[in-house]
């Protein structure tokens, strides 16, 4: 098991301020992963905070704690050594859904049609969502840079105090 030290790796960087809520990312993601334009099956989701006039794209941060991966009883989630992404193997996944409750960000979800789970795999290092975003609200940049630190902070609050692996 590799924990995917993320040192020089790239991450998705999300800037909600630039997002217009067009869902091109959801279409690109579902096309790449499901072979059809199907936002319902996208790994990235844009939340519309209508009353505040804010759109927030959201997906797995490939968090260092990898709750999903550690909870999996059959080792169906592993780290892609190239990208650091935690990737689900459909061949191994038994559909037990434990990962879906273990991930405190709600970013790994059960797909009732296939009986497996869906999560972001960084498209093997060439994220379709980032390429599809017309406003550069989603970019793929050096990990150190990403504003996702905030979300990782929450990850560590959920856990312990150390960020030994981060």
């Amino acid at each position, binding site marked *: 098991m590799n924990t995917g030290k993320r040192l020089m790796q790239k991450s998705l960087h999300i800037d909600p301020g630039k997002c217009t809520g067009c869902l091109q990312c959801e279409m690109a993601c579902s096309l790449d992963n499901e072979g059809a334009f199907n936002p319902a099956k996208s790994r990235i989701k844009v939340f519309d905070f209508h009353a505040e006039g804010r759109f927030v794209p959201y997906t797995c941060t490939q968090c260092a704690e990898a709750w999903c991966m550690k909870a999996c009883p059959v080792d169906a989630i592993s780290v892609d050594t190239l990208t650091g992404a935690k990737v689900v193997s459909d061949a191994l996944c038994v559909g037990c859904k434990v990962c879906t409750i273990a991930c405190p960000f709600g970013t790994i979800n059960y797909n009732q049609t296939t009986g497996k789970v869906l999560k972001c795999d960084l498209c093997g290092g060439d994220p379709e969502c980032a390429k599809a975003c017309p406003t550069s609200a989603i970019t793929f940049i050096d990990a150190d840079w990403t504003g996702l630190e905030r979300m990782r902070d929450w990850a560590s609050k959920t856990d*312990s105090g150390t960020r030994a692996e981060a």
Partner: protein
Amino acid sequence: MARYVIVGAGPAGVIAAETLRQQDADGEIVLLGGEPEPPYSRMAIPYYLTGGIEESGTHLRKAQDHYAKLGIEVRQAAVSKVDTGANSLVLADGSALPYDQLLLATGASPVRPPVPGLDLPGVHHCWTLEDARQIADLADPGASVVLMGAGFIGCIILESLLARDVKLTVVEMEDRMLPRMMDQTGGAMIKRWCEDKGTSVLTSTKVTEIKAADGGGLQVVLDSGEQVPAALVVVATGVKSNAELAQDGDIKVDQGIVVDNYLRTSVPNVYAAGDVAQAPDHSTGGWSVLAIQPTAADHGRVAALNMAGVETTYKGNLAMNVLDTAGLVSVSFGRWDGGDGCETAESVDAENFRYMRLVFDGDRVVGALCLGHTDHVGVLRGLIQGDVRLGDWKARLQADPCRIMEAYLGSTLS
């Protein structure tokens, strides 16, 4: 060079071993398992029973040389005694195994209720791979099967038995299915769902005796006087920690082996993790044993970090369960049953088997139940264990409890 010994090759033990290796490249790591199998996951047993995976699919790590590569020595050896004074284990064959740091991850065992006839052939727990092999042998399509206990594990097994097309009768002593995971509303919906699928579910019913039937098979006698014939009886009436090992030393034992915020027992170089550990509880502030996979994984990781000298505090046990009952997915988190001073928000759509219940303590979510929901449910863990202060989002969740994802993002990313 430190020698780490881990007793128990379930998820807690395996994750601990791997985490130790990450932190300490040189230490000696010995992983002891008490069953004649490679390290495997009990949780995967139901999928073996449905035929979804082979036996090997239950193995925690798939590569044959996984442990060897990491320099983790895996041994099949039951431990009979811990000698904390000598920092040494006594193995079943009488040999000694000294340690510098010890992790007890011996899991739990099924509870055997005081019912006559439980030792008859054809009566099984469903806890080990060996149990599963026996069940697989008897649970043929059309066979009459009685499942004793409709708790969490019982309901998981129920799913696989249904998938094997057996004629199933479920007997539960309490007044609803999943008494410790679901409230009345949710339990009733699951029951109705099962009955719609042709399963007979007898709640508030006890098995008083199991008898060998004339001409083979079993007769299950119920407290109603009714008798149900069965080719197979599966007993799932709860589990208890395998804490005996620790019993006679200085290690404090209560329901399980009592550990502190670092997963350390009352003996400084002895740790415990997983189903055997009674750890600080995030919800109650007390201590609890939670026999669930995510807890075993967290314990294993945090214990190992501390054993390797990376001081890491454990945030506390949080009950979390996800269950698929013949297509109806249910989830529960934390203090779903509420308690003093808690407020709740509910949305019930019984007809369509959808239910959402949130429990608040002040402006934090402390527990949740959902039925028929699969999207973003993990965020409930984030909300609860992250102690997220909801601010105005509380009112919005009270108006529509399904807006959990928005509430999380709205309260954490602002």
